[in-house]
């Protein structure tokens, strides 16, 4: 067990251990629970940092043992997994800080934080998974650990949302299990390998493999909220803000998109997938989702529901990017995985702040919020402009790279989709900004809470500001060595050049 094999395991165990400890802690032990949480988050960040540094210098980290006859449990840290692992490690630290402030005096917090770190452990597992079997193992663990978070409040509505969530995700899981078992039956246990396995493929395997691909995408599409399977996401907005922030910016939604990226790039391989005509179908579905998500977001009155529909459309950028199979297009899709995570988590933090400090949930109650909470509103504005794709923020980098990638492979209609969706984004974000900054406050805030000098409690204010600054820095310094864009180019070199 050399050091290189232990680090991925430790990265996974930090949050698993944290969740077990937190479950054992008594409900009243707030200080201890917060310190355990933050220590685990910090430790994980360090471990991920070590792995990122190692991979940058070409080391390899792998931990494997046979779990079932013929099936391996593999944890491997490669460039692509570090992209997702890094994102979730950073955002988990921030969301934990935010959640501590958000759930200041609400009941059963040890249950919340226990499942919270379990959820992140499974996200880390998804990122580090070395083959489809391990991926599925953590994919289902993610479903189980997020259900109690969605129904945390225990109200009728939360339970109904939880029920829908479970029905969608478990059916998706069953379809995915069927696909993986069938694939395993056809070609045996496949580790994730840059460049994929099916480049030189005999024709008679083509039929079943296409069907398996469709099942895989359907199974993963539930979590990635592709159009027909997205119903659970807006309803899951009833969960507390840190949950919808972590779920919809980092963990659940990204797990689906990350899974599709793994399947397309590292199981099927981009060339094979395009030869089999799979990518054009995928591109079509993701394009429809992009437009559908944005148009539905226009008509939502509740702030978090509008953000949820915007997530549905934004996540499909990743899938559209990957289905552009040119190196630049894939780079655009992958980099959006990080950018969307940061932008969306900023927006959800701010939505949470508005809800927690002013009791504001609907958009038309937001008038004059800029004057009362300038810090949060600045972060929200930056997030919104990032989403619209206004330069020099992170969103623009994605749209620019994907646009160039699409033109390079001659799929000009993708640029039209990008433009239309940017217009729709502007159409549903700018009115909110107008209300926040330029509309005077009509009626008193539903139920306002004061935290002394700052506009809201420090725990709630700092995370959105940090992610907003990160948004600008990532956008401006896009071509620095460790920025997401250059890291993605590192991935794509392995992926496409194979």
């Amino acid at each position: 067990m050399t050091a290189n094999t232990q680090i991925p395991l430790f990265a996974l165990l930090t949050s698993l251990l944290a969740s077990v400890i937190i479950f054992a802690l008594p409900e009243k032990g707030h200080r201890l629970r917060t310190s355990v949480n933050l220590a685990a988050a910090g430790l994980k960040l360090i471990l991920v940092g070590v792995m990122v540094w190692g991979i940058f210098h070409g080391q390899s980290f792998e931990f494997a043992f046979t779990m079932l006859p013929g099936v391996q449990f593999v944890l491997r840290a490669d460039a692509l997994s570090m992209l997702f692992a890094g994102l979730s490690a950073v955002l988990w630290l921030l969301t934990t800080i935010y959640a501590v402030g958000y759930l200041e005096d609400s009941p059963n917090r040890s249950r919340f934080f226990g499942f919270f770190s379990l959820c992140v452990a499974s996200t880390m597992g998804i990122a580090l998974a070395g083959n489809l079997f391990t991926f599925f193992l953590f994919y289902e663990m993610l479903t189980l650990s997020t259900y109690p978070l969605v129904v945390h409040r225990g109200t009728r509505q939360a339970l109904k949302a939880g029920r829908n969530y479970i029905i969608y995700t478990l059916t998706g899981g069953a379809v995915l299990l069927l696909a993986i078992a069938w694939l395993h039956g056809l070609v045996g246990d496949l580790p994730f390998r840059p460049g994929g396995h099916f480049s030189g493929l005999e024709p008679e395997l083509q039929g079943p493999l296409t069907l398996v691909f469709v099942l895989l995408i359907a199974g993963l599409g539930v979590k990635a909220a592709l159009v027909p399977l997205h119903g659970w996401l807006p309803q899951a907005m009833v969960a507390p803000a840190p949950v919808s922030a972590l779920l919809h910016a980092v963990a659940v939604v990204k797990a689906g998109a990350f899974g599709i990226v793994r399947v397309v790039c590292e199981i099927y391989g981009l060339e094979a997938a395009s030869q089999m005509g799979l990518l054009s179908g995928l591109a079509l579905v993701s394009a429809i989702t992009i437009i559908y998500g944005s148009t539905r977001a226009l008509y939502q009155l509740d702030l978090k529901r509008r953000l949820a529909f915007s997530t549905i459309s934004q996540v499909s950028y990743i899938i559209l990017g990957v289905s552009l199979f040119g190196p630049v297009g894939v780079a655009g899709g992958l980099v959006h995985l990080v950018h969307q995570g940061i932008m969306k988590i900023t927006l959800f933090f701010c939505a949470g702040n508005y809800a927690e400090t002013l009791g504001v949930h609907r958009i038309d109650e937001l008038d004059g919020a800029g004057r009362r909470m300038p810090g949060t509103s600045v972060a929200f504005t930056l997030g919104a402009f990032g989403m619209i794709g206004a330069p020099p923020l992170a969103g623009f980098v994605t749209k620019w790279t994907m646009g160039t990638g699409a033109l390079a492979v001659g799929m000009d209609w993708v640029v039209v989709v990008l433009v239309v969706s940017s217009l729709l984004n502007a159409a549903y974000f700018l009115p909110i900004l107008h209300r926040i900054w330029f509309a005077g406050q009509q009626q008193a805030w539903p139920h306002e809470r004061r935290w002394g000098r700052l506009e809201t409690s420090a725990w709630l204010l700092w995370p959105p500001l940090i992610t907003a600054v990160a948004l600008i820095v990532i956008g401006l310094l896009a071509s620095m060595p460790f920025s997401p864009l250059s890291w993605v180019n590192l991935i794509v070199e392995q992926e496409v050049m194979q």
Partner: protein
Amino acid sequence: MMQSSALLLLAVLLPFASLLLALNPRWQTIYRYCLPVLPLPALLLALLAEPGWWLEMPWLLNGGLWGLDELRRAFLILTALLWSVAGLFATGYLPDRKLRRFCVFWTLTLAGNLGLTIAGDIASFYSFFALMTFAGYGLVVHEGSEEANRAGRVYLAMAVVGEMAILTGLLMAAQLSGSAMLAEIPAALVDAEQRWLIMLLLIAGFGVKAGLPLLHFWLPLAHPVAPTPASAVLSGAMIKAGLLGWLVTLPFGQVSLPMWGNILVVLGTIGSLGAAALGVRQVRPKTVLAYSSISQMGLMVLMVGAALAHAEAAGAILAVLALYVLHHGLAKGSLFLSTAMAVPAGQGSRWGFWVLIALPGLSLAGLPFTSGAAAKLAMKEVLQPAGFGFFMADYLPALMTAGAIATLLLIWRFLWAQGQVARAGANPACMWLGWGLATASSLALFWWLPWHPSLPGIIWVASMVESAWSLAWPMIIATVLAAMAWKSVKQR
């Protein structure tokens, strides 16, 4: 070289640094008084630095490149000068209510405007362009009235659509040219097979900002509602950004496109004459000025069309265009500022006041010995139909004179409208200073500013004497027409 790149960075980063002043409400008075100071480093840069060097910043976006060339220097002079003068005027003009928010959006728009003038790579050019547009919205809806909000909505909707068109155009051009620099785009456009689409997108996209006919609707709505210094800057400097966008991206001098030339000339004519026709029937002085801006931009579009159609003459036309932009910016800026001035009490000083207001207007129309005359003569000189091959070439002189007449009619209309609305009273010192500087720079300082080297010799004051008549007769016709119209209005 070192100090000019430091000056460049200072010029762009100073406005962003000033945002920190917005953090604490108590500092807003300091913030108010530093508004005019912010553009000064850019002005210094424009005046001192010799053009043609670029500052590489490989770490910025996908390869940053900032710097100045001959064309950008003229635009930078205009922008910096106008913003500082308007800033000075604003310090006197602004009430304390919502001051901090105005200052924030003012500095952001200033940063955007300055940035896009000196940006050399596509990403930073487009970033600053978007920053200027979105921050401009903050200035337009500053008053918060229902009319302001509606104007803001129209402004934003058209601006966002325009931006998307520009983004697509730049994207396609950049993908063809394979590099992230603006300079490579014209070369890539020369032999692109979708050239018509890219040019359509770029012309339409920048046209929204430059006020092409059918894309100009936001202009007459936005100007009157914006606070006066904001509308001065909006009309003086920000519209020119669209023009700069064309000059930097379209393939001047590399290939002659008679078809595009004709289209632009026709659009320019419609713009200048149509705007005048609409402007004359307006009641509010600022709306009249807005239409006058559209009509002046029409003339500039005329020149752009000519430059596009006739590759050889493109260099000279661009130089004249730069001069014209400088002249129009300063004159229009001082006119806008004058709308907010109260008329002084004394009989003698009142007459002087009205003359000082009228002079920039008349210079717009081409009064001899003013900047307008210089610009008009240079334009007439360079747009000689002889060498041009495209269809509209021989109508150019006629169109120019018609444009001059239209402009003067609009000026008389503005003066009459301002007369109706002007109130007597005292003005704070800063407003006097700001307006005075603007008028002085339009009338006098114009001659000492460093012009584009390749300007034809004719425009010097000395040679203006024998061509005075050619400038004067269109003005006389316009004055006669105005008088007749004024009399008929009086009878009714």
